């Protein structure tokens, strides 16, 4: 499957491949992280979240990995489908009230 080591603004994969989208977060005090999917003209759609006391969490076809040592978050999508095409954002939160969003990655899935 396709993966990126550092944040890239775009990722193109073939249908059926596994996708990995990476995110570097900024605040070592952040203790809650969320991945969102945003389609054109719509609001961000919650995909999966993880708290800092975990390093891995799985959902349906998605897995989030958290590496607090290097402040890195990744989203793995298994068997990527055309309907997965969208912009993906990671967001972090510390004890404050604001979600801080990372730079989005545009995932394009071709069939």
């Amino acid at each position, binding site marked *: 499957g396709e993966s990126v080591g550092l944040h890239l603004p775009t990722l193109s994969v073939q249908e059926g491949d596994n996708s990995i989208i990476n995110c570097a977060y900024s605040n070592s005090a952040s203790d809650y992280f*969320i991945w969102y999917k945003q389609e054109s003209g*719509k*609001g*961000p759609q919650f995909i999966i979240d993880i708290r800092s006391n975990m390093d891995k969490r799985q959902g349906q076809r998605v897995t989030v990995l958290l590496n607090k040592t290097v402040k890195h978050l990744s989203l793995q999508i298994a068997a990527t489908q055309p309907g997965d095409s969208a912009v993906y954002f990671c*967001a972090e939160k510390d004890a404050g*009230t*604001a*979600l801080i*969003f990372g730079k*989005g990655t545009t995932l394009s899935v071709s069939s």
Partner: protein
Amino acid sequence: DAGVTQSPTHLIKTRGQHVTLRCSPISGHKSVSWYQQVLGQGPQFIFQYYEKEERGRGNFPDRFSARQFPNYSSELNVNALLLGDSALYLCASSTRDGNYGYTFGSGTRLTVV
């Protein structure tokens, strides 16, 4: 169950006017947050309200204000609109303690001309 609902969906205003955007959270959620998303960027935090009290404020000018009502719905007001206020305004509803499970509405697309 209804998700987060926002109104209106689209709005066109002239520079100098003011605008009021509305949000209804998910039933049972007591916290509402507002975000601004400029084209091509991630959402930026404007306000969070919890139990009708302002809990946090982002780096936005005083032209931006908000309030939360007893039924936990919320309004975002922007005065003296500038062209740069053109954006998608998003409302997020979060779990009862206001700290987790942020769910966004579809947003209000504001165009200032």
